[in-house]
């Protein structure tokens, strides 16, 4: 395989990894927007919370680095679940304290409140973990699958010589990221599509008053939505920490904006749209970083956001809300 093709293949892998964690964040944006038409600008900061709180939990337990044996198979999922519960609860609390009293206020009021909550959370993180880059220890064992004797011999039996694929790498970390993000995205989609509570969420999003008339406790459904969205963002922050091994108190801001762009691109309020948008944005980010230059990536992504908002605000798959308003 030529060098160019290898670079391209590597970019595809990076794009998929970025898309995976963006999807988890974008889902929270789109779910909350779908149900109460709030663009929750504090949502990205929950991703940062997942990063910091899981870091704190690991530090308290202080396991050997990298994790191995029972630590890898039991401790890691345990920390992930705890991180999800804590981040979900934080989001739930934010909604109850900051947004719920504004449920009947004009839409600008909760929107500005969300921006305020975002600033507040970031200030808290800066005090808690300091204003500079925070290292996330390399808890997850890293091993390359492509530059690996067994894999090389396996492919050579198939008649493929991958010893020349020096640029491409696909590591245990990539696999880990996929094996967390993709099943969660699928699980959430099934939850919304198939379960009684998921259907009630959609009913609330489509007609809140009619949902009430069905006996659906709308406040409880909204709380469930915030909790679920927060939990997904939290676990995204944790796997991202394990993957990239570094972060900062503002990390949620940019991740949040990219996830928001993904949600808008796919059609805000649309669950499948958010996932599709996240993978497209992930891919664009990887390609732009590599071929245009990473200093231009924000320009490219936010340029897409502006173009979408101007020319097709309902997104690729169609925003559920704007269809309803017709």
């Amino acid at each position, binding site marked *: 395989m030529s060098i160019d093709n290898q670079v391209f293949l590597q970019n595809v892998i990076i794009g998929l990894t970025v898309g995976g964690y963006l999807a988890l964040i974008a889902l929270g944006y789109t779910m909350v927007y779908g149900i109460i038409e709030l663009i929750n600008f504090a949502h990205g900061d929950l991703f940062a919370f997942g990063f910091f709180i899981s870091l704190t939990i690991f530090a308290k337990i202080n396991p050997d680095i990298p994790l191995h044996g029972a630590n890898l198979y039991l401790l890691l999922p345990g920390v992930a679940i705890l991180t999800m519960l804590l981040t979900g609860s934080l989001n739930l609390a934010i909604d109850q304290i900051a947004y719920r009293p504004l449920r009947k206020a004009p839409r600008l009021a909760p929107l500005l409140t969300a921006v305020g909550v975002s600033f507040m959370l970031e200030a808290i993180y800066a005090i808690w973990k300091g204003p500079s880059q925070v290292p996330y220890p390399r808890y997850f064992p890293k091993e390359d699958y492509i530059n690996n004797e067994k894999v090389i011999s396996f492919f050579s039996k198939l008649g493929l010589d991958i010893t020349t694929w020096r640029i491409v790498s696909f590591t245990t970390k990539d696999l880990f990221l996929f094996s967390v993000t993709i099943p969660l995205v699928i699980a959430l989609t099934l939850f919304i599509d198939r379960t009684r509570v998921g259907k009630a969420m*959609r009913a609330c999003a489509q007609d809140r*008053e009619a949902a009430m008339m*069905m006996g659906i406790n709308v406040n409880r459904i909204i709380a469930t939505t915030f909790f679920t969205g927060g939990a997904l963002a939290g676990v995204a922050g944790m796997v991202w920490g394990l993957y990239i091994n570094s972060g900062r108190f503002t990390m949620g801001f940019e991740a949040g904006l990219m996830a928001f762009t993904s949600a808008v691109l796919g059609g805000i309020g649309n669950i499948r749209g958010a996932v599709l948008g996240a993978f497209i944005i992930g891919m664009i980010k990887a390609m732009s970083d590599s071929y245009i230059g990473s200093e231009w990536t924000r320009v490219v992504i936010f340029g897409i956001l502006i173009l979408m908002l101007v020319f097709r605000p309902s997104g690729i798959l169609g925003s559920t809300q704007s269809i309803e308003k017709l």
Partner: protein
Amino acid sequence: MIETMSETKTALLELNNIHSYYGNIHALKGISMQIFEGEIVTLIGSNGAGKSTTIRTISGVMHPREGTILLEGQPIQHFPAHSLVSKGISQSPEGRRIFPRLSVRDNLAMGAYKRNDRKAIRQDIDRVYGLFPRLKERAKQYGGTLSGGEQQMLAIGRALMARPRLLLLDEPSMGLAPVLVEQIFEIIVRINKEEGTTILLVEQNALMALEVARRGYVLQTGNVVLHDNADTLMHNEMVRRVYLGEE
């Protein structure tokens, strides 16, 4: 004389001096009414008389500023809307309010949201399909793709899924072709006769409503101006002039 089931029996639903507001607009100005178990009661009146407001106030979507609503003697006027469904009040609201992007079947399932008896829910879905065979044909379609008449059937079916003791029907004939109106009214009577469901029927089509109802209340600008047996109302001169369009 009004043949109520005698004043000694408690009404299933009783409104006493209900005042409801939209902001500063005084929409209901002291409404009192009684509905007894097993009855069809109709609420007639022109646009803006307060018919839908009455329904919304009963179902807890809005709360009265004054007055009491008693369900079998228990005050419910402060209950949130969602909690009244398990108390046995469900409704087919004005404008149908079908969930446009849930399938017909899921719309029906939402009607039974408060119930946990899965098997009985499935039987009830079949029962609704029995009443409205068109819904069965369209079970997998999105609610939003149905015609107006089909949406009305779905709204009534969805309300039935709660197994209500009191069914509130707000303008079930609105915007439907005359043939369909006949059909819908036949089914309303069937539901009342076969299941014994008590029905409060709000209608602009006063003639049809009075034909199926036992008693009726006439609303004018937020007040009950007349209430009597349906037969008597149908022969009342004012009702004939104003609501049945006779000169």
